[in-house]
């Protein structure tokens, strides 16, 4: 595999993990614009635990889960004030959370401040791939449980879900905390792939992109974040390849303008995302079984 393709798949894997991190709260009706905050916490915590010189020198096998759990704990604690807000206010609250995290880490000399922090151990794509597959399977599993059913019910109609005994607050805190865990995991794995982390990697644009993967992919099914991450990782690269092949500057150099136009188009044409429940049904529809009570209507088309 070429280095270019390997690098692309690494980015894809990280994008998929962070997409599930934002998808889980979104599936329960909570829009999270704080993906960058979770990535930063996970990446720095892991790098500090892992670093032999400046930190504790733990092996990756311990530092990565520990960093993800620590991020989950932070996510759990901030979920209480954040989940008091709704809609656009929740977007602002999660955005503010990410900015606060970035501000704090930028001023922490123990992890290098603004100049960044080196990561001691390096992991290969072969280490990242199974984790990514595990995260995707976990996303599908969680949505298929009663916990997932409650999440999706809250997304559709919170007040009715509550009347049926769903503890909306517990479910939302749970979804947000698991999302934080996955965000921390993505951050920690990022550090081990690129060997160097700095806060500037995870600005507001990053959080917006991740929220876009999820919304463009669709929040109704666990296919959404997978499709969204694939779309966002590969379409700009495809545009670059097409631009190089044809020599069209419009597609090659200005591919992000074209990509932006594609996103606007998708939002107009498919506001519920690429992968919706009805689309999924269309793809996997079983051959309709005709029961004797409903004989085929032969008059159709006559």
């Amino acid at each position: 595999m070429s280095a270019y393709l390997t690098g692309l798949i690494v980015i894809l894997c990280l994008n998929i993990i962070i997409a599930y991190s934002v998808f889980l709260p979104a599936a329960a009706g909570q829009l999270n614009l704080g993906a960058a905050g979770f990535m930063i916490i996970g990446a720095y915590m892991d790098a500090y635990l892992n670093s032999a010189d400046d930190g504790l020198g733990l092996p990756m096998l311990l530092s990565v889960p520990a960093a993800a759990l620590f991020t989950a704990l932070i996510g759990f604690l901030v979920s209480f004030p954040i989940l008091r807000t709704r809609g656009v206010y929740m977007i602002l609250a999660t955005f503010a959370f990410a900015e606060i995290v970035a501000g704090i880490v930028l001023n922490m000399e123990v992890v290098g401040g603004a100049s960044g922090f080196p990561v001691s151990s390096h992991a290969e794509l072969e280490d990242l791939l199974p984790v990514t597959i595990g995260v995707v399977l976990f996303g599908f599993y969680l949505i298929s449980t009663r916990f997932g059913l409650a999440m999706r019910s809250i997304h559709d109609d919170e007040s009715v879900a509550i009347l049926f005994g769903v503890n909306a607050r517990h479910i939302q805190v749970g979804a947000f905390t698991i999302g934080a865990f996955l965000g921390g995991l993505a951050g920690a794995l990022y550090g081990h792939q690129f060997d160097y982390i700095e806060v500037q990697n995870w600005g507001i644009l990053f959080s917006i992109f991740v929220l876009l993967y999820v919304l463009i992919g669709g929040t109704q099914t666990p296919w959404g974040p997978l499709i969204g991450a694939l779309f966002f990782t590969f379409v700009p690269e495809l545009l670059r390849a097409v631009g190089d092949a044809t020599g069209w500057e419009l597609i090659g150099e200005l591919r992000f303008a074209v990509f932006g136009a594609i996103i606007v188009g998708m939002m107009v044409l498919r506001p519920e995302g690429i992968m919706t429940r009805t689309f999924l049904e269309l793809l996997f529809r079983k051959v309709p079984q005709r029961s004797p009570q409903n004989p085929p209507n032969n008059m159709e088309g006559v």
Partner: protein
Amino acid sequence: MSAVLTLSSVTKSFGGLAVIDDVSFDIEQGSRSALIGPNGAGKTTIFNLLSGIYEVNGGQMILDGVDITDIPSRDRINFGMSRSFQNIRLMPHLSTVENVMLGQHHLATSFKDIFYPIGFRPKNKWAEQARAALSDAGLDTYSSQVVSELPYGVQKRIEVVRALMSDPKLLLLDEPAAGLNAAETSELQTLLEKVSASGTTLLVVEHDMNFVRNLCQHVVVLNFGRKIFEGTTDEVGKDPQVLEAYLGGDASDVA
């Protein structure tokens, strides 16, 4: 016969306007009762007070011997009451069987119940119970379809099945027949008679008087937030106060 539901002097006002004014009535165990009245009489408000969407300003609501007046809405389903809605409130992005499984939610309390992949493994007691209930209601052909695509009459019946999954003693139905055609109404009535035969008490808000006459024995009539009549379905059409509420005063009074 004992009362499964007792309202005593229930009062609710929005701002200075009393929308429910000192309303008291009993619903007998196993009965089929109707709550009727002209538009704006406060019928749906009574349902919203019962299910805890609104808090009462005064009075008491006793459900099967338990005072539910101050119990939060999320917990009321545990005391044996569930409801359907005037406008369909199914979860539009869930399939029929998933919507029905939401009705079982308060019965699933253990860790295993919450984290068992009911969607992946169709052979589990929750999904099987939900499918059996749909099949009883003649809705099994729609099990795996997303509800937003289904006909209105079918969605109305799915709402009833969802409400039934919590195994309620008292089922509140808010205009179950509204917007249904004659065939759908009779299908709904068959379903509700079956439900009633199994011992569940029905309390129905409905404008379709034929439907009420066919289904219910006991009627409570509200007008402007006050109870103006309580009695049997046969008597209600003869009561002068009820006639006045629906048809206006006698022409000779005006002249």
